[in-house]
């Protein structure tokens, strides 16, 4: 316990820096995931044939061991933050993609027909009907992805991506418990906090009319 205290006293500035590094690596990856997976998910709902195929590929990607993926990018992208972010991005795609697809698919047929019948273009239907109605499901996917990624971002340290993983691996190598704890505990706290922040965002963005409704469309 004392050693941990000493450790914090001498290293707190570095710890904060590592935590910050960790956070932005994960969040950039999530952000990239949103940019790619949400439009892709919406697109997939328009092409029934290829949808299951593409989601299948995303599923397979998810099962690849994360260390292997990180290592895989080294020959192409070298080491550092960029390959780490890109590898993590691949992991964020699936939960967001799947939730976007299911969310949009789950929008009531009648509402879509109603939208078509009153003269909405395809884009207006996505913007005014499907996306707002699917938003709570999409947000759930984003939250899942961000919690995963904060955990996996510890592995970024392996390829020189930095972050709190550095402490954990130093701790493992040197058999120094305080390093491991100093790395792991902030990761847990960060995951919880980020999830909480996203839940607030979710409450803000999900249309008001859907609250208090049992069945979302």
């Amino acid at each position, binding site marked *: 316990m004392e050693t941990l205290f000493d450790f914090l006293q001498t290293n707190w500035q570095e710890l904060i820096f590592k935590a910050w590094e960790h956070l932005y690596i994960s969040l950039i990856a999530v952000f990239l995931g949103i940019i790619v997976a949400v439009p892709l998910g919406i697109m997939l709902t328009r092409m029934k044939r290829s949808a299951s195929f593409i989601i299948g590929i995303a599923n397979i990607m998810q099962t690849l061991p994360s260390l292997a993926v990180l290592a895989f990018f080294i020959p192409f992208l070298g080491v550092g933050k960029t390959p780490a972010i890109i590898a993590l991005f691949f992991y964020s795609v699936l939960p967001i993609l799947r939730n976007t697809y299911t969310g949009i698919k789950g929008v*009531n047929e*009648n*509402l879509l*027909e*109603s*939208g*078509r*019948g*009153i*003269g*909405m*273009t395809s884009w*207006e239907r996505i913007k*005014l*009907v499907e996306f*707002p*109605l699917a938003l709570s499901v999409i947000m759930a996917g984003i939250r899942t992805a961000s919690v995963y990624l904060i955990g996996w971002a510890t592995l970024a340290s392996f390829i020189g991506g930095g972050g709190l993983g550095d402490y954990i691996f130093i701790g493992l190598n040197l058999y120094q418990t305080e390093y491991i704890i100093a790395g792991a505990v902030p990761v847990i706290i960060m995951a919880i906090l980020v999830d909480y922040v996203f839940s607030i965002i979710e409450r803000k963005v999900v*249309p*008001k*009319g*859907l609250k*208090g*409704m049992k069945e*979302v*469309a």
Partner: protein
Amino acid sequence: MLKIEKVSKIYKGGKKAVNNISLDIKKGEFICFIGPSGCGKTTTMKMINRLIEPSEGQILINGENIMDKDPVQLRREIGYVIQQIGLFPHMTILENITLVPKLLKWKEEEKKERALELLQLVDMGPEYLDRYPHELSGGQQQRIGVLRALASNPPLILMDEPFGALDPITRDALQEEFKHLQRTLNKTIVFVTHDMDEAIKLADRIVILKAGEIVQVGTPDEILRNPVNEFVEEFIGKDRLLQTRPHLELVLQIMSRNPISITEDKSLTDAIKIMREKRVDSLLVVDEQNALKGYVDIETISEYRKKATFISEVINTEVYSVNQDSLIRDSVQKILKRGFKYVPVVDHHNHLVGIVTRATLVDIVYDSIWGEEESQIAEMVEMF
């Protein structure tokens, strides 16, 4: 204003959902498409706003072929109401009502003004503007659904069983309200339903469809009086045919005027004699002033033959009667539903004046089904 010319819809695999339908709809007319499921009524309606594209023929709105127009543009000029209401749960009532104006890029104040104006039409106050659909009752939701279709003031409105999901009382109220609204606003309406009562109540003209083809077009009255074939008759229902015989309205007009009756002071032997003579199994019992008291039937008489002497001792006073001025449809329903063999008819002082039996009903049904056909045949014979 709306002209449907030889329109067919053929799906892949050659299935004809709609086959060669032609129809002219005038401005301000309320048209009901009716038929069993799969008859093509909804398909025909959806071809009007190109939710389904016709395979053959053309549809003209005010002389303009709908295929020459942009479908999105076309749909914005035609109101559309669906059965499941189709209000967007994430939008307020204001946003829902003014959706089409929004698509047409109206100004914010114009939209709000229009929404208030429309709410007034259905007696709903401005407090509803900021509510969400799930906070409203089913009837209110469908009212909003109708208002949404009216928002940009389209001359033509398509409705796909809009009141189908409502409870009977709400449906009734909404039908009336809507019919009134349609007359005031002079909208042309194409309304799909499978409920004949609804069609009769609302339509100026009813279009009866079967297997993708028009079977009969006419005003409710024409269809009720002259159904073209068995299918239409069946669809209308025998019950309604009876009710709509125009010259037959009161029980007075159809009852047989010589009910077989007996006074209560007569003996059972007399009763049996009368029954045998008139070949009936029960007698209506009256007092000296001919006021209805009850009835006796052959079963009761044979049961009490040894114990009782007079009718008054065995009379069954639980007799159901109808007034001579009541409507035929009511008494017909009673006879049919309660399984009576006959119903005595009385005047206002409960004096027996006649009787309606199942035989009477047979006569009416016969007349309504074959009576006019016979006279038509007679007319045709004269023509040749």
